[in-house]
């Protein structure tokens, strides 16, 4: 087995120094070493998006990214963006619209939605659907999630839907 690797990274604003196995993924590091269990493992092969976290401003698959690859990175998890208030508007919209059922996909879905919001609106419903198509939800049928994201990314009341179906 390869030698352990020393890494230094920032997680939710906290500086972390650790020596970790070379094969340790970031999602296992967050969950098992830091106790940040809001990031979930749904498939471990990069399809479902439940493990989505943000590294240096971009959302990544936590199950396909080795911790050692993220030496020096600035990581945010669902706990970080929730506690900082950054996604309060999305959280409120998801709550009001019940855009989650079992909640297992929800942290990844929120981080993905936040990345769409960061891109700036207006955004059509189909664009929202395409943007979250790397995040599998088995419960909701997606419409509640699309509705919730729609209210936030098109908060000025103007969506990009060309049929004039503004919300």
């Amino acid at each position, binding site marked *: 087995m390869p030698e352990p690797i020393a890494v230094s990274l920032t997680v939710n604003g906290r500086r972390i120094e650790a020596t970790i196995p070379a*094969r340790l993924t970031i999602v296992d590091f967050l969950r098992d070493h830091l106790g940040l269990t809001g990031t*979930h493992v749904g498939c471990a092969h990069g399809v479902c998006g439940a493990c989505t976290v943000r590294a240096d401003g971009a959302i990544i698959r936590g199950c396909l990214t080795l911790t050692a690859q993220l030496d020096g990175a600035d990581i945010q998890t669902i706990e970080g963006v929730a506690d900082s208030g950054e996604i309060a508007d999305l959280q409120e919209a998801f*709550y009001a619209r019940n855009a989650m059922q*079992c909640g297992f996909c929800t942290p990844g879905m929120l981080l993905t939605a936040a990345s769409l919001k960061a891109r700036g609106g207006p955004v059509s419903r189909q664009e929202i659907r395409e943007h979250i198509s790397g995040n599998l939800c088995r419960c909701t049928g997606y419409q509640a999630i699309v509705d919730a994201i729609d209210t936030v990314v098109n908060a000025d009341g103007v969506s990009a839907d060309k049929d004039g179906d503004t919300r």
Partner: protein
Amino acid sequence: MTPPDSASVRAPIGERLPRPQSRRFLHGRGRYVDDVAVAGVAHVVYVRSPFAAADITGIDVAAAKAAPGVVAVVTGSEIAEWHDPWVATITNLPGQKSPPQHALAIDRVRFQGEPVVAVVAESRAEAEDAAELVEVDYAPLEAVVDMETALDPATRVVSPEMGDNLFWRMDIDPPGVEEAFARSATVVEETFHIGRQTLAPLEPRGIVAEFDPAEQRLTLTFATQVPHIMRYVFAKHLRLDEHRVRVVCPDVGGAFGLKIHTYGDEVATAILSMMLKRPVKFIADRLESFVSDVHCRDHRVKARLGLDAEGRITALEIDDLTAIGPYSVYPRSSGIEALLVCTFTGSPYHIPAFKAAGKVVFTNKNVMCQLRGVGMPIACSVGEGIIDKAARAAGIDPLDFRRRNLIPDDAYPYTTASGMPFESLSQQAALEKLAALMDYDGLRREQAALRERGIYRGIGLACFVEGTAPSPAIYGEGGAPISAQDTCTVRLEPSGALTCLVGVSEQGQGAEAVIAQVTAAAVGVAHTDIRVLMGDTDATPYGGGTWASRATAIAGEAARKAGVRLRANILGLAGQLLQAHGKTLDIRDGAIVDVASGEARMTLRELGHAIHFRTTEFAPDTHPEIAVTEQFSVRSRMFLYTNGAMGCHVEVDPETGFVTVLKVWCVEDCGTVVNPMLLDDQIRGGIVQGIGNTLYEELVYDAEGQLQNGSFIDYLLPMAGEMPDIEVAHIETPTAESGLGAKGAGEAGIIGAPGAVLNAINDALAPLGASVSRQPYTPERILAALGKVPSRD
């Protein structure tokens, strides 16, 4: 009909309220079984059979035992010393037979993925490393994979001690059906294939078992829908007293019926905690989920439908064949899908003559059992599919055909030819509401115009019946330890808030919110002042759990009854303090008010403090009953039957075979609606699962019984980009069985969608002279139907 109890069925029942206990999911503070920290926990992984059928001729665990971090490596025969095997047959479906199943395979493996050896280590990674060092020698046997030939004398018997490969068969064969076909003006036939599927909740199965050797108590933190059933199963088969087993449900990341069954790897995990005297955790990974979670469907149904000259149905015949793998699944048995295919097909319609035959056979694929919808999605696909074929043959529009043949709304109570006693349905009203909602006539005009331009759109309709909230007739009376009742305790806390303890559990459907709303209405408090506790067999009342669309209908009624009685008790106690008759008082917004003036006389908090801290303020013979328990179960019929109608609009590209689902509409009737927002999204979620089942999902096995597509990469599931917006509307026909009047709705979406999608595709293909009947309706199958590529089926 008895109207709902209007004093207790009032706001906030019927309001679109967010779930009060859902914010944790938005903050990353859900707690699923894999998130629960347990001191000293060891991790188990299972070595699984790579063969569909083989004799185990040797197991060498020496290298694995010597690997770093390994705690124990345990074989099936060692595990078997700690438990009694289980046999899943229920006596009310007579004739079933199934071999004894052990937690781990012992001498023989019967499906790819069957657990064989347990490897326990200090970390999961170490357990996975060591599992690769376990050497199992197998002598492969002929794998039985084709259900069509499973009963042939030349086919190997999967479990020789059973004598043959038949698990169970059923027949409905009254006289006169052939005569009815003979008198028909039109008879159409079709063979439908419904591929094998799974429902893949995003959170895989998982369990943490903690055995306390001093108290001889086993605590299972368990991603299950049915805590009390699992307590019974684990206690019985691990030879423990039931009261020494505690099942605790943390947050459960989706289930869809998958987490109600007995899995050998979960039982073995509990045994390992007893053997090793330390906590042991098992979390399935996605690849082993595909080969070990129960599968569903996998039916071949031949259907024959007769019509008279006016386009009225004269007779229907169903012949169902399905394969369940090598074992019937404990404790429900694997016969219910076939039962529901044989009883629900054609159930929205008046069918004078009906016969059905179902055969359920053993094979060497993974086990099959009940998942969301059970056989009803198949019944709907087959029934609606054959009806559209008949309508086309008779030259009748599918909407008109349904108008002619639906059971009339004024015909209830009505018993179907298959023997189902419907209390009160609204098929005609639902169909008319659907036709208006989707602008059926407008869509037909648009379809005709687009066809001129070479665009092939299709409009599909599906009427359906859902059996919800089962009575004891389906399992309990057949000897299965499955409670049809649920119980709710509602108690007043000193703070004036209420606590509800209830036997059903939560996997995201919103049962917590529904119980809170029902209780709030019954007592007269804000639903946010109610804490609902579920999923702990040491604390919550005994109940059946959450499955078969039963939480709202059954536990909701128990909560309503408890709330009504608590309210009366509170008013009596308040009357003593206020020197007023209880009937002159009411509870509104958490306060005791004078009925006549509406004036607030006392808060529930003031009353709660008096009851708990100053009992002397009450008359000496007062026994304040402020924790009230009530139970409810359906008794008069097998299910609370519901109905609905679904419409689907698709575009089929004849060049590529791709189907785009443009829109889906659903009108359904589940009686009293407690929370329309949660209800609509239950139905939408089910519809999207149904679209996935219909267009994408099929577990493909090769001739050796090897699963070919067991990953999220290869087994396609619906993502947001391909899914349409879905409009949902309701009709409310309350059941008279309960004061709440609610029936179930959790499976309506997945039941109706496959039939609506099928009919929409065939409607689009009709002008091209093609049709499909083998689900999923993939681009390849559509192109094959169009004669553009050879069929591989």
